[in-house]
């Protein structure tokens, strides 16, 4: 029985629409819980991976939540579940965070943005904004209160959870995350090992970690709201600044999404250039990962090695794109400029050089006995947890989950090149580290295959000055340096998007950090955090 039939049989009221790449199912909020349980548990459906969870403000129709589901058993099973919450005054919806753990933080995000309360969610606090913040910023009728609150945040570990009493009326209950008498240490937001401004509240038992509570939002820039008031050409400048170490890939995702929506056909040259650039960026990012990873573990010299070699890639990228970090290279309909005449030559030089650098890293760090002792067996993330948290990228692949978007849903010219998807089954920090080192080699192979065969053609297709995307909803994903970076676009046919949501690569990772690090030592928390390799502006957006 097909997925479609099964759903319509069980839920006759559900509206089902079939698209080329996915099934769109729209239901009302009351049905959500029942349907989620079925989708998750049914042996034939088994939608165990939640790709994305998006809050929506559909104006008159009420609020909504859009779930993107996928089955890891069969890539073809893709589902977009749209849930409408008609009541604008008291928007309540049931939680699905007990099924897909990635919803733990994503539902808090929706609450933060729209004020939608998830009943049954264990921790219904704001995710990004301060608890005193007035209003819900992504609502269409939001007006920001004037002034800047400069009072210090009080350390408050109490949280609220909602449940239904026996009449079905939602009620709230407050409780404390940490018991009194626990030794709670605050790590961050200004801390050298949090890679930016992330904050952990950590309960310690001696050197051991009992519990961890993540606070984000210290670099929440409201990118999604900003995009709603920008034209499409303007929005692409912001993606570079989300995960600045995958700026080309992020932008690739957004451009691809808009191009797909407009039905724009790209020349092969563009696809080749974009693919090569993505891979260069991936090497760049993984080299930086190596640098910071070693620094967090105290091997300071390796940090400089990583940066030294990263500069070589930046030189190449700079020559063509003009930027070192925020490249602004992909545009809707192609790339900004053609590749520099030296590009091919210099990339080849780089490819010849990198193996020596990697060999040096192996000697100085990978094979180091102290490094091995610090990493092997530390920070275990099981495959089930990785899928449930939606921890994609090298983290997921380190937990034996083949989740590479380049293989799952090929884009660019990835279907034309031969490369291995590196998967390891050790599930620990060392595996996550080794995967990145091996991925550098795979990226080099991809570039090697492509660099000599860049076809002739336009580097930029003609587009109109003002782009209007046809009405509808679109989801596109690319494999960014640290996982699946998705773009969910809902258009009403205007010159700016109605809602633009970026699936963060980092948010699932930090959602899982409590599970991964519980019972480990405080020094391991640093190693785990470093091996997950999150970028905070990408988490906070």
């Amino acid at each position: 029985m097909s997925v479609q039939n099964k759903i319509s049989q069980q839920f006759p009221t559900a509206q089902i629409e079939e698209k080329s790449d996915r099934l769109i199912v729209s239901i009302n909020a009351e049905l959500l819980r029942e349907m989620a349980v079925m989708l998750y548990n049914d042996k034939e459906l088994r939608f165990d991976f939640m790709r994305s969870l998006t809050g929506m403000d559909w104006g008159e129709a009420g609020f909504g939540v859009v779930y993107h589901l996928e089955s890891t058993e069969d890539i073809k099973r893709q589902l977009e579940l749209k849930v409408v919450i008609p009541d604008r005054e008291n928007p309540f919806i049931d939680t699905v965070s007990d099924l897909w753990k990635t919803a733990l933080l994503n539902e808090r995000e929706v609450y933060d943005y729209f004020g939608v309360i998830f009943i049954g969610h264990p921790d219904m606090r704001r995710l990004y904004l301060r608890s005193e913040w007035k209003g819900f910023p992504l609502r269409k009728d939001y007006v920001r209160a004037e002034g800047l609150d400069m009072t210090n945040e009080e350390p408050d570990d109490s949280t609220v959870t909602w449940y239904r009493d026996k009449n079905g009326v939602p009620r709230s209950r407050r409780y404390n995350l940490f018991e009194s008498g626990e030794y709670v240490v605050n790590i961050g937001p200004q801390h050298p090992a949090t890679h930016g401004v992330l904050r952990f509240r950590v309960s310690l038992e001696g050197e051991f970690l009992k519990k961890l509570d993540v606070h984000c939002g210290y670099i929440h820039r409201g990118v999604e709201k900003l995009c709603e008031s920008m034209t499409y050409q303007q929005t692409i400048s912001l993606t570079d600044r989300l995960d600045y170490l995958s700026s080309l890939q992020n932008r690739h995702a957004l451009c691809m999404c808009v191009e797909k929506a407009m039905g724009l056909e790209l020349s092969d040259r563009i696809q080749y250039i974009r693919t090569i650039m993505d891979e260069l960026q991936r090497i760049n990012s993984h080299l930086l990962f190596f640098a910071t990873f070693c620094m967090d573990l105290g091997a300071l010299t390796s940090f400089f090695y990583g940066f030294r070699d990263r500069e070589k890639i930046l030189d190449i990228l700079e020559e063509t794109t003009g930027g070192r970090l925020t490249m602004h290279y992909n545009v809707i309909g192609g790339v900004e400029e053609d590749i520099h005449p030296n590009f091919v030559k210099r990339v080849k030089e780089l490819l010849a050089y990198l193996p020596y650098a990697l060999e040096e890293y192996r000697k100085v760090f990978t094979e180091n006995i102290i490094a091995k002792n610090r990493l092997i067996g530390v920070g275990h993330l099981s495959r089930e947890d990785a899928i449930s948290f939606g921890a994609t990228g090298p983290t997921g692949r380190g937990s034996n989950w083949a989740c590479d978007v380049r293989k799952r849903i090929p884009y660019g010219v990835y279907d034309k090149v031969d490369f291995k998807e590196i998967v390891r089954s050790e599930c620990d920090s060392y595996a996550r580290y080794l995967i990145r080192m091996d991925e550098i080699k795979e990226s080099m192979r991809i570039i090697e295959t492509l660099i000599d065969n860049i076809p002739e053609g336009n580097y930029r297709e003609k587009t109109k000055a003002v782009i209007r995307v046809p009405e509808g909803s679109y989801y596109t994903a690319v494999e960014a340096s640290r996982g699946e970076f998705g773009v969910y676009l809902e258009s009403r046919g205007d010159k700016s998007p109605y809602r633009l949501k970026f699936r963060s690569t980092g948010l699932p990772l930090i959602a899982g950090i409590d599970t991964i690090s519980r019972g480990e030592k405080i020094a391991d928390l640093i190693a785990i955090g470093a091996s997950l390799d999150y970028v905070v502006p990408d988490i906070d957006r």
Partner: protein
Amino acid sequence: MFDFSIVTSSIHAWLSEYLSQGLAIFVECVAVGIGILALYAIIAIIMIYMERKVCAAFQCRIGPVRVGPFGLFQLIADVIKMLIKEIIIISHSDKFLYNLAPYVVIVGSVLAFACLPISQGLEILDFNIGVFFFLAVSSIGVIGILLAGWSSNNKFSLIGAMRSGSQMISYELSIGLSVLTVVALAGTMQFSEIVAMQSSGWLLFKGHIPAVIAFVVYLIAANAECNRGPFDLPEAESELTAGFHTEYSGMHFGLFYVAEFVNLFIVSAFAATVFLGGWMPFHVSGLDGFNRIMDYIPGALWFFGKSFFLVWVLMWIKWTFPRLRVDQILQLEWKYLVPIGLVNLSIMALCAVFGWHF
């Protein structure tokens, strides 16, 4: 070899002519005190400059070059800056202990520094239990660190201090055992005698296998004792911001900073003294001509040369290895170094008794 005691005794004689015995000794003590503090400061500056240059060399950089030739005056600028920087007193701290802590650290460090024989006749504290005294005063520092961590009223400081306490007290044992091995061979605890008996060959060669083992164990333990990488847990930057001295600013922090580097020098100089002959030139018994040429090089040069060589080795280690975890540090000590040290000590005792050494 020039004996520096000629100079000191002539000064003493000259002073005694004008002053009473007691007053002369007092004047000498003051002069020596000032001298040792000045030397301490100079060593600190050299050490920090060296650290910055050495680490730059390891990291494909060039290090300070702009202030003075080769950046030589960089550290002087740092000292001036540090001296005038505000010293913040934390409001919820134990003020007395908070202010005391850096001085405890520095006093322990200076006392240990005073034990080192720099050249022949140029030793300040030299008596029959010198090695013992050295080990005792050099471990005063840990009290200062614990005080600093406790009185700062900061959780990171406290964790750092606790780590430091457990680490330093544990590694004290290995240092003691390996030093004991040498003492068993030398048969004395007086620094001047230990150095003097190395005129026929450094103890590292004389004691062959057990001495080499003791030397390696000592270097590892000494590195841990100075809280330096890969054992820099108490101030592990990526974990505890700045560890036990997170809350210290200005010159109070400066004292910790200086003590850390001079301690590194002290442990290296100690190793140079007991294993590599201190100021004693490189002698090969039998080759008198060679030995005489070696004697022309002043003792102080030998001493500093050997010490800074060991310092460089320790820096090399620091800038290469990642950091250990606290349980691994204690495991390394209690499961490996201490048993090795004990066995090694008994082997050395046998060697000493039966004369199986050179």
